[in-house]
């Protein structure tokens, strides 16, 4: 029996199945995602990156930054915190309600808690449980609310407030998700390192800013040129030994400036339906846009870090609700 055509057909359908399931169906589902309102705010998310940042993405791609850095924050679970923001007028009732939801507290501890509001009184609950506790507290006239808190090792490390979802990347080409963490995750780097000067110095000499860093120096993104008349305001200020010889200055090329603008636009912690979280309204906007509203031309701030440079990541942050 001539199995040839049969073999061809069968293999064709197997491959077609995979193509249908992993190319066509996902395209139908997430191929046409549009920006949407952030939860609880009229702001659209994401916003297209400003032009300089988009050029920076080209530099990011050409130099293969995604080979060492990821842009995907992971999330293990979502838990609910109960936040008590105001004690209201009926203090004894609130106190007894608090002791009911927190049987581990003693009365003096509960009183102290009530005097230092707002405070999270319960953490790590399931949504239904949290709703029940909030109802108990609100029944006494206090103002309690449920905070939605994403948790996971990446989030605890400060790499983001929530996981990345498809909508975070709809304006990027190419999407630079990365596949390995030889360097830290960059999805929210503009929150951790908002200083353009830090980024420029880090690109020029990574071990200047991060001791023990495995990142290669990107000196070819900078120009060494003779100082004409007066030094350029963009010139890098570097410690002796790394700096240029006298009469010369190091100035970032447009690629370096664009790359830094791109890095400063990286932020993905806006609350969305598919990635809910309660945003503690901190300084500024109620939620982050995916790009700063005004493109910042990085001015080299002229204070290099102290010689005992700190590592890139701050100590793990606490739960976002403050």
């Amino acid at each position, binding site marked *: 029996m001539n199995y040839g055509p049969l073999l061809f057909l069968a293999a064709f359908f197997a491959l077609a199945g995979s193509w249908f399931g992993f190319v066509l*169906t996902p395209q139908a*589902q*997430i191929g046409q995602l549009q920006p949407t309102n952030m*939860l*609880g*705010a*009229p*702001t659209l998310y994401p916003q297209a990156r400003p032009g300089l940042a988009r050029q920076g993405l080209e530099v990011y791609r050409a130099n293969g930054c995604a080979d060492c850095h990821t842009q995907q924050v992971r*999330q*293990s*679970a*979502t838990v*609910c915190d109960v*936040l008590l*923001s*105001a004690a209201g007028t009926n203090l004894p009732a609130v106190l007894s309600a608090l002791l009911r939801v927190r049987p581990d507290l003693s009365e003096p501890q509960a009183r102290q808690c009530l005097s230092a509001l*707002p405070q999270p009184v319960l953490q790590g609950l399931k*949504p*239904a449980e949290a*709703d029940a506790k*909030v109802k108990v507290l609100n029944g006494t006239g206090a*103002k309690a*609310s*449920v*905070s*939605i808190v994403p948790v996971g090792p990446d989030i605890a490390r400060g790499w983001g407030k929530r*996981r990345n*979802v498809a909508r975070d990347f709809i304006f990027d080409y190419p999407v630079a998700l990365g596949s390995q963490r030889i360097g830290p995750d960059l999805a929210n780097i503009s929150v951790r390192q908002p200083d353009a000067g830090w980024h420029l110095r880090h690109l020029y000499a990574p071990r200047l800013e991060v001791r023990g860093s495995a990142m290669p120096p990107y000196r070819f993104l900078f120009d060494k040129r003779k100082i004409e008349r007066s030094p350029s305001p963009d010139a890098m200020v570097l410690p002796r030994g790394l700096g240029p010889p006298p009469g010369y200055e190091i100035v970032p090329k447009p690629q370096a400036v664009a790359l830094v603008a791109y890095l400063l636009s990286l932020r993905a912690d806006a*609350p969305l*339906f*598919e*990635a*809910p*979280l*309660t945003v*503690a*309204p*901190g*300084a*500024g906007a*109620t939620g982050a846009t995916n790009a700063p509203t005004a493109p910042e031309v990085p001015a080299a701030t002229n204070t290099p870090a102290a010689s005992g440079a700190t590592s890139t990541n701050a100590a793990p942050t606490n739960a976002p609700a403050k």
Partner: protein
Amino acid sequence: MNSAGSQSPPVPPEAAEPSAGNLPAPVWLMVLVFVMLYGAMVFFDQYGGWFDAQVYMPYASLAEVQACQPRGGGPSLERGRAVYENICGLCHNTDGKGRPAQAPPFAGSDWVLGSPERMIRIPLSGLSGPVQVESTEWNLSMPAMGAALPDDDLAAVLTYIRQSWGNKASAITPEQVKAVRAQIGARSQPWTAEQLKAVP
């Protein structure tokens, strides 16, 4: 070229192309396939989110995503406090007592406890000129600090002011803020005390 399957197959000469025996595949392999398929279905049921485009790991279903949405649309005191401390408290002080020669107090002030319409207008367009707050006459100029705030945030901070430091007044809703914004349109002149008193 094919020979019947046997325990010790004859050794073909070096030059012959290879041939394949016909022994059936072991049964346990087939059983394993089915066991794994079953396991796969159970796994997908639990972790697959049933092909929903809005269900991402770690959520198991759309219902779970909906259960984890932030509660209570609308302003909260917590939000109002945060906005206050970032914007208003810089001049009016975090305890609402104001700062002499800089900003009048909020605690116990009629301007705060009175008409919401009046109160909402102040941060939207600013207030300048002589104004009496409690027993003190103030004559400064306040810029429109709330003009750039979204309705939710402005409602939250005004509610916070109306319900803190002993103040007991009604909350202000974002709808009210929106209505006032529509009424005053693109006004850029700060209010005066007289104009505000004319507002019901």
